[in-house]
């Protein structure tokens, strides 16, 4: 990877961090409602994996911590923020909210709020790709705790039996809501759990984006070449609680400090500085530029966008016109 690409990725991760922090503020100001699950600490996962895949081409699906996955697939951050504000200009026209960002145009097939729910949906998209003979792959990002759902086991089995082109990325952030992994899960290494399904699997550090990309590239190539599904575990950490209603008090200060030393943004920044390709001043101005964009472009767009019309409350429950419903096709 050349220096320009590294700087671009650094900017993307910093943007993701600042975007999420601004969401936090908007939530506190009550501009954003519902549940809000933030991504700080895990930036290298979504951005690193998708950098190794083909954003906008491959079909991506994830859980409710979904803003950054959508943006990396090509979603306009203005539309993501507008969705959080519940506006008609939002990714899902204000009908989805934070947990349900969708952008079909960029093949971001959604954020889902049932833990483990996207596993079979991802396998289904892979089945469709397989039938149509395209060169896309399906990529499913979920957390470690999703692996304790039945859908994990059922889907790993089917994906493997039918050799579906799907990459499962497990962002192991060590907690299922507020319960530590060692208190809920018999096998701590998540990649080992797919052995029983005869599936290719790998694991790596999820904080160093270059490491993530290296492993993700291998995984993506494997799946795209038609060899079948693949499971990649990334060891990572979320700085905030599970959602805004969770203070994260179940974690020790020492643990948080240890992980803060392995911050994905700092790792890449310091590496660039060490290599003489970047200076702290560049970082400061990059940050300023990002904050400026978030405030003056993204937040402004969300604030100024119109609300959905109440008259359109029932739009999208069913498709607008179905000729097979009312006997037009007899």
């Amino acid at each position, binding site marked *: 990877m050349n220096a320009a690409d590294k700087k671009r990725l650094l900017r993307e991760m910093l943007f993701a961090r600042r975007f999420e922090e601004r969401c936090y503020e908007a939530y506190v100001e009550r501009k954003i409602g519902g549940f809000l699950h933030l991504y700080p600490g895990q930036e290298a996962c979504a951005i690193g994996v998708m950098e190794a895949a083909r954003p906008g081409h491959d079909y991506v699906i994830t859980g409710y911590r979904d803003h950054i996955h959508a943006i990396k697939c090509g979603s306009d951050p203005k539309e993501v923020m507008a969705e959080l504000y519940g506006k008609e200009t939002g990714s899902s026209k204000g*009908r989805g909210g934070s947990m349900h960002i969708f952008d*079909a145009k960029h093949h971001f097939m959604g954020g889902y709020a049932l833990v483990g729910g996207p596993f079979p*949906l991802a396998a*289904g998209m892979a089945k469709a790709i397989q039938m149509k003979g395209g060169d896309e792959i399906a990529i499913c990002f979920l957390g470690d705790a999703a692996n304790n759902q039945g859908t994990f086991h059922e889907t790993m089995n089917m994906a493997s*039996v039918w050799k579906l082109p799907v990459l499962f990325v497990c962002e192991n952030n060590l907690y299922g809501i507020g319960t530590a992994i060692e208190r809920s899960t018999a096998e701590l290494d998540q990649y080992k759990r797919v052995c029983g399904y005869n599936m290719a699997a790998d694991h790596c550090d999820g904080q160093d984006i270059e490491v993530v990309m290296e492993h993700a590239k291998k995984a993506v190539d494997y799946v795209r070449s038609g060899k079948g599904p693949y499971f990649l575990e990334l060891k990572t950490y979320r700085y905030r609680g599970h959602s805004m209603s969770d203070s994260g008090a179940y974690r020790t200060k020492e643990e948080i400090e240890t992980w803060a030393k392995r911050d994905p943004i700092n790792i890449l920044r310091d590496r660039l500085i060490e290599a003489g390709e970047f200076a702290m001043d560049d970082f400061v101005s990059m940050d300023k530029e990002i904050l400026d964009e978030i405030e003056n472009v993204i937040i402004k767009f969300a604030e100024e966008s119109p609300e959905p019309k109440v008259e359109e409350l029932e739009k999208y429950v069913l498709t607008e016109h179905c000729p097979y*419903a009312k*006997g037009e096709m007899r």
Partner: protein
Amino acid sequence: MAEMMFWEAVRRAHDEEMARDPLVIAMGEDIGVAGGTYKATRGLFDKYGPERVIDTPISENSFTGLAVGASFLGVRPIVEIMSVNFAWLAMDQIFNSAAKVHYMSGGQLKAPVVIRSPGGTAHQLGAQHSARMEKVFMGIAGLRVVTPSNPRQAYGLLKSAVRCDDPVFINEHELMYNMKGEVPDGEYFHPLEGSECARQGKDVTLFGYNISVHWCLQAAEILSKQYGIEADVIDLYSLSPLDRVGIQASVSKTHHAVIVEEAEAPVGVGAEVMAIINEECFFELDAAPVRVSARNVPIPYNHTLEKAALPNAKSVVEAVRKMFGK
């Protein structure tokens, strides 16, 4: 018009739709090599191959979810859930994914998946194989629910369901697969919405759906011959949405309503139809509407107890006699 059995009608709809569109697939337990527990997919495995006629593992929630995910990308899956009792396990994917994705994506994604499943009580199958779940499905916004009462509807509703862009649940019945009936020789698309008048009458409306339509028709003959009461029998083949206009029209004609359901009364089809009658045509009523429903028990194994738990044509006749004081 050729006469064929219910299962043959379902099979024919599968076959025609799969021959037309290579993205139509069938999935379910034992539907491929074995041809389906009720023969609804017999011979299709040999004709269309294992990629399109898929024997799934016994993982109802995830194979249903897999079908939903495939439908996002234009595949048209017809999922068979072997018994509606097992559909409870797939409720997460039906309720949370299939029915909601179009709405929560602001109209971007569609889930044109068809889920067929036989419900109802059969012959002493016991509490866990005798569920009648239509009441559960019809309460889900974003999901169409239809329930055929004869081979013509079974064929035409499946044809329409495959072509429809919404998720459709088709509630079939374990006892009805060998029922014979006429099916149009040419292609026929039964509307997914509305209701059908199965018998014309002026005195009382008997609302039925799926198997209870047949109890209503038997009861109507008895009522006509023995009591001089002429029943209008309305077949509610669409349970979601229910045909408000059709319900209102018949009750406005007969001024009497009896709703017949194989399921238990609480929170059921009868309750919903009564609510619609109240909302649409309360002042047309000459008597309080009545439900004829199953007793509110898990279905017992014992033959006598099982029969006692369920309504039949006789209980419909009794309800109408009571209503008319005869």
